[in-house]
């Protein structure tokens, strides 16, 4: 008789612990598929631009006056989100609340400034393929920021209700991860639309 290979694990964590749990993987798959979505949006930009006749760009030197500070604001908000998550990790609830509140305001400011940026454009959605790509791509990003704002609001309220501890906080870590993603993806969108024209793409 051969011995059966019986698994008898000891002291297993019950449920998600820290950020380790199936939910963390779930947000990972969400980010993969969303990153692909933005990849295709940028592919549409580069492909259309590369095959278009000269003069496709409506702005050969996009104005950075609003866009650059706004980009920096969004990237800084990622740092604050990290700081807020640290507040949960170190059992400093006021820090977490302040952090989530600040990220929310920074994100909301980003949306407002982006709105001003849209309004300052001399072209509109249907002017040309460039204009359509610009508004739809940045529009997709704004939509993601707004979803992120709703998540931040939920995290703020749940932290206020004292739901989390360093052990039980997978929701916090997943939400903050999503916010980081929204910020990083903006860097790609910003570089594509605001910086590559200076390198000569699509002129």
């Amino acid at each position, binding site marked *: 008789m051969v011995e*059966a290979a019986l*698994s008898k694990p000891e002291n297993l964590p019950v*449920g998600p612990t820290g950020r380790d749990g199936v939910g963390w993987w779930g947000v990972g798959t969400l980010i993969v598929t969303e990153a692909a979505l933005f990849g295709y949006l940028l592919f549409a930009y580069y492909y259309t631009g590369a095959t278009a006749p000269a003069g496709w760009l409506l702005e050969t030197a996009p104005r950075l006056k609003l866009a650059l500070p706004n980009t920096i604001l969004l990237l800084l908000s990622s740092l604050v989100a990290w700081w807020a998550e640290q507040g949960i990790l170190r059992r400093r609830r006021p820090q977490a609340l302040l952090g989530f509140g600040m990220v929310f305001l920074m994100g909301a400011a980003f949306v407002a400034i982006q709105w001003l940026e849209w309004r300052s454009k001399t072209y509109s959605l249907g002017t040309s393929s460039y204009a359509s790509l610009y508004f739809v791509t940045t529009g997709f990003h704004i939509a993601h920021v707004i979803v992120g704002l709703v998540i931040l609001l939920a995290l703020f309220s749940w932290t206020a209700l004292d739901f989390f501890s360093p052990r039980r906080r997978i929701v916090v870590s997943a939400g903050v991860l999503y916010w980081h993603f929204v910020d990083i993806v903006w860097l790609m969108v910003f570089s594509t639309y605001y910086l590559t024209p200076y390198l000569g793409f699509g002129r």
Partner: protein
Amino acid sequence: MRQLDLRTPLVGIDSVDHEARLLRLWETSPGLKGFLTSVDHKQIGIRYIITAFIFLALGGIEALVMRLQLAGPNLSLLTPAQYNQLFSTHGMTMIFLYAAPVLSGFSNYLWPLLLGSRDMAFPRLNALGYWIYLASGLFLYAGFLTGNGPNDGWFNYVPYASRDYNPGLNEDFYALGMVFLGISTTVGAANFVVTAFRTRAPGMSINRLPILVWGTLTASVANLIVVPAVSLAFFLLWMDRQFGTQFFNPAGGGQPLLWQHLFWIFGHPWVYAIVLPAMGMVSDGLPVFCRRPLVGYSLVALSTVATMILGFGVWVHHMFATGLPGLGLSLFSGASIVITLPSAVAVFAWLATIRLGRPVITTAFLFFSSMILLFVIGGVSGFMTASVPVDWQLTDTYFVVAHLHYVLIGINLFPVVGATYFWFPKMTGRMLNERLGRWNFWTMFLGFNLAFLPMHLTGLLGMPRRVYTYNDYAGWHALNLITSIGAFVLAIGVLLFFVNVLKSLRAGAVAGKNPWDAPTLEWAVSSPPPPYNFAVIPTVASRHPLWEEHLDQGGATSSIDRGMLLDEGKETIATSGLDAVPDMVLEMPEDSFAPVLLTLGLAVLFVGLLLKAWLTVGIGGAIAALAMLAWFWPRSELREREPARG
């Protein structure tokens, strides 16, 4: 009650008390409430399969009507416009509403059983995937039934899909319906990926996974990456049609070929996504009837993954005739030729398994083994069109129609029907009738080949596809008549299959746990399995836990009857990604209204978008948001938060 953070799960054997406890924890409540809230992967899987078979029947009827129209020259059963809607709806139905969902259904049903787990990693997400599939299918068919079906082929090229040439709601139904359906595919894929890596039985290391799991896992990773391409394409098309954007309009600086790129960046990997799991069914089912393990397990698993990786880089072979630069064409042509190599690995592995085994001829065996032949025919005609000059000659002719039907019917429908003969006893506790099964098989096999083998010739003789009729001097008459007759024979075969299923549900021979003496874990539980699947969590020590005695590979044996009890709550075990070492007790969610409510909200939202009724969009969005808030609200039962203080 204080919640323990760490626990050593009790190990023991099954008992009556234990089963009663598990049943109370896992059983779905009866009636409408249970129907709407169930998160049991077996119920969801069966719903997927039944819904997909209904769409198969609808798509089949559409095909038969078209074959009547094409049975002779200059027939006028259908107007050109009706024909356009029929062939487009037929393609949409078969590819999006049958071929992929039926495989999701089988995988949903089988995965936790194959993996020795009690459910998928995200049971509520699983329910959401089904509900959205159903809702988007109804949405798409609502278009067809109101005379607004898609009418530009399933691939839906611009400019014909643009508003200038296609002013009705047809393309709006199709575009929005596809974006809606994409959500279902994506959440399903996410669930499969996480389930494959996190919820397997202890000991089921990655080199012990059934090939079906490899196939669906590979397809799911691909879906996560490529489905956004088609969803985006359809969304941009809708924007072009309704909001005056210029994505595909050359007059506004748009690029019509962008549509084709985005569509086929999705479309070609998707072809593999709807065959790789079916190939997995053959790789797992065929060896059971050959009474030996699959030859070349590792090679087959690796070639599954290799097919997909190469499959990302072949999409342009759908666009050889669009005037792209020659260098690009040769690269994609090369990739399309190379991709036959991993496919051939599977073919030779199956042939060797039959040759080295002692085949037992059952209906399932007939379907699985005949698929090898159909796969080779469809593969060779695909290989031919991978060559640019050959493709220029054959593109847009019936040769391509013959090819794609050999691939889709040969590598999807035949394995799926075989898989039904194989796993029906597990799902229902009854065997399908073997005698009727032979009739079923031979009618389908002969009908299919009668319909589609001559069609290669029709294409070589130059008959263009997607055209509603042809002249009598073209010389295509006899071939078309044969194809039409074959199509009806095939349809009778499929009908016999449905008859067999319905008859055997009531009168089939009762199946025990393991009627085929098969080697994998799903056959270790009763037929049909209890709601919790496994009373104790099995420990796996080999690729064939139920064949260890007669394979006698030495070493430790799998432990099926003794294992972790996990009956303190609705629980299963999480394991590490590669070696499947237990690393967490997973708390599983109860049945929930959230998935069906979220689907309802999204359905209202999409109807609002279609009609541009913004208030409706707002209401739908609000319902969806509330459902998601309820879904994600952290719960202490699931250990997502600390229990209420004080």
